[in-house]
């Protein structure tokens, strides 16, 4: 396996447009996202950050009338190609949502369910423990695995959602403002967790919180509505987080990250 030529990037977009009906919500995005790094997508409300994130695992498919032009390439395969099964895409690209959304099942089943439907045949107890450890939740829940997931606090539920995502061993984990509904301490734990997770996974995170982007990410994509007033969002600058926050090329990025705009 090691000898097979691996592509340089985890995922790559080429001239990507995302439409809702005839309206391009996101225009002309060209990004190459590094493996095993955290990439943050920042920008003002309504500029298409979540729409772009949701394009990566074809969650926008559930929005009627939405479609995509251009390409998103994972290991050279266009995720929007005609012969691509969106279910298979989502098995390889997991997602953590803004609000914790554990299933109405026990803590154990929340983890095992995804593995089961993905045809996992190994030792389930082991997988559950590993996944919970991976999400820094094991110590807190190991004595109540049979209890309902709804008995956990919001922060614990969010880590459970991360645990169930890593249980299916995806290539990439998408996070849509994963800490915005959490208190500061839970937020800190999620941020620490992301640093551990990036040793094994590529993470793309949408965040409203610029300090968070600065703290957790290696790369940052700055999104903004296009200047022509079309209400269509695009990535105006994409580079190392350090550069975005200290020496941005685009004046709009500078205004935004220094708090003069947005």
């Amino acid at each position, binding site marked *: 396996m090691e000898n097979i030529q691996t592509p340089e990037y985890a995922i790559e977009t080429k001239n990507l447009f995302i439409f809702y009906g005839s309206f391009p919500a996101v225009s002309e995005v060209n990004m190459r996202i590094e493996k095993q790094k955290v990439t943050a997508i920042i920008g003002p409300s309504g500029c298409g950050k979540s729409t772009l994130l949701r394009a990566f695992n074809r*969650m926008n498919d559930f929005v009627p009338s939405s479609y995509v032009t251009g390409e998103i390439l994972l290991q050279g395969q266009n995720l929007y190609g005609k012969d691509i099964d969106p*279910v298979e895409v989502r098995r390889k690209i997991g*997602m953590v949502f803004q609000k914790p*959304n554990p299933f109405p099942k026990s803590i154990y089943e929340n983890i095992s369910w995804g593995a089961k439907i993905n045809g996992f045949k190994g030792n389930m107890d082991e997988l559950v423990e590993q996944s919970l450890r991976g999400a820094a939740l094991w110590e807190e829940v190991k004595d109540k695995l049979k209890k309902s997931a*709804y008995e956990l606090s919001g922060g614990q539920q969010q880590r459970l*959602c991360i645990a169930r995502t890593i249980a299916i061993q995806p290539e990439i984990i998408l996070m849509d403002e994963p800490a915005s509904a959490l208190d500061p301490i839970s937020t800190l734990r999620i941020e620490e967790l992301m640093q551990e997770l990036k040793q094994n996974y590529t993470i793309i995170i949408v965040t409203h919180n610029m300090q968070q982007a600065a703290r957790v990410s290696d790369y940052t994509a700055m999104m903004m509505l296009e200047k022509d007033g079309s209400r269509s969002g695009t990535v105006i600058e994409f580079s190392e987080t350090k550069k975005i926050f200290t020496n941005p090329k685009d004046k709009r990025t500078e205004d935004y990250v220094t708090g003069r705009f947005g």
Partner: protein
Amino acid sequence: MKQENTIMENKIFRPLDLKKKMRPAESIIQSLLFISGVLSIFITVAIVYELGKEALLFFNNPDVTFAKFFGTTQWQPGIGLFGIWPLVTSTLVTSFIAMFVSLPLGLAAALFLSEYASPKARSALKPILEILAGIPTVVYGYFALLFMTPLLQKIFGDGVEVYNMLSAGIVMGIMILPLISSMSEDALSAVPRALREGAYAMGATKFETSIQVVLPAALSGIGAALIIGISRAVGETMIVAVAAGSGPNFTFNPFKAAETMTGHIARISGGDLSYNSIDYNSLFAIALMLFLVTLVLNLISQGIINRFRQRYE
């Protein structure tokens, strides 16, 4: 600037009145709501009281004993046989058949409407399903007798009697179907979209998401649909009166004719009964029994649902 100052000054010197104030509209509404609540409880209690009182007269009759009522299997008031079971079994058999038809079909319809159908298909199909609920039950009764029974006779042969519980039960199930499907659909649609997205993001197919995530999350609502469905089936009168037969018959064979509790009450009270005769009083005992059967079935289904729900919530 000047105006701002006067406002500030006014605020400082204005005396505050925090005393209780009369709010007549509030109190009127509150008492109206209270009266409506009390009234519905009172009506229920009054019905149970009246049933109990008349049923007591029946059990006080020297010809009737509790042991006979619950211990024998023949109901022939004309010759003094008062065993309730033939009426109960046919009620149970027809209701069970009705639920056996309506629950899976209703749930499947609800799942289709809420998870699979396009908005366009849903807006076309839902009204059609609801038309089923608008058909008078007497029409269903004749549908059972004149269409379903001949059909069953064609399928199962001569063993199927002209009046039979199977036909009445199936048609009763069709009647209850829209109730089950529309209540279940409401419960399924109320499941937050976030839960579905969570499942899809795990690489679940539509079927896996609907059956293993959405359905368990909607269980309480579906349980309510089940309970109301059972109550309708047990209480349904016209279909069984027309199609299930008009003579008490202690049997579990769905091909046979057997009169249900409701059917019996309808038939007997339609004839000329003299007030305070034993036949007349027996109707109240049957009604009380009907009440009891509904209650027990409701409690059982509530218990089953609670057990399932504990696993999921």
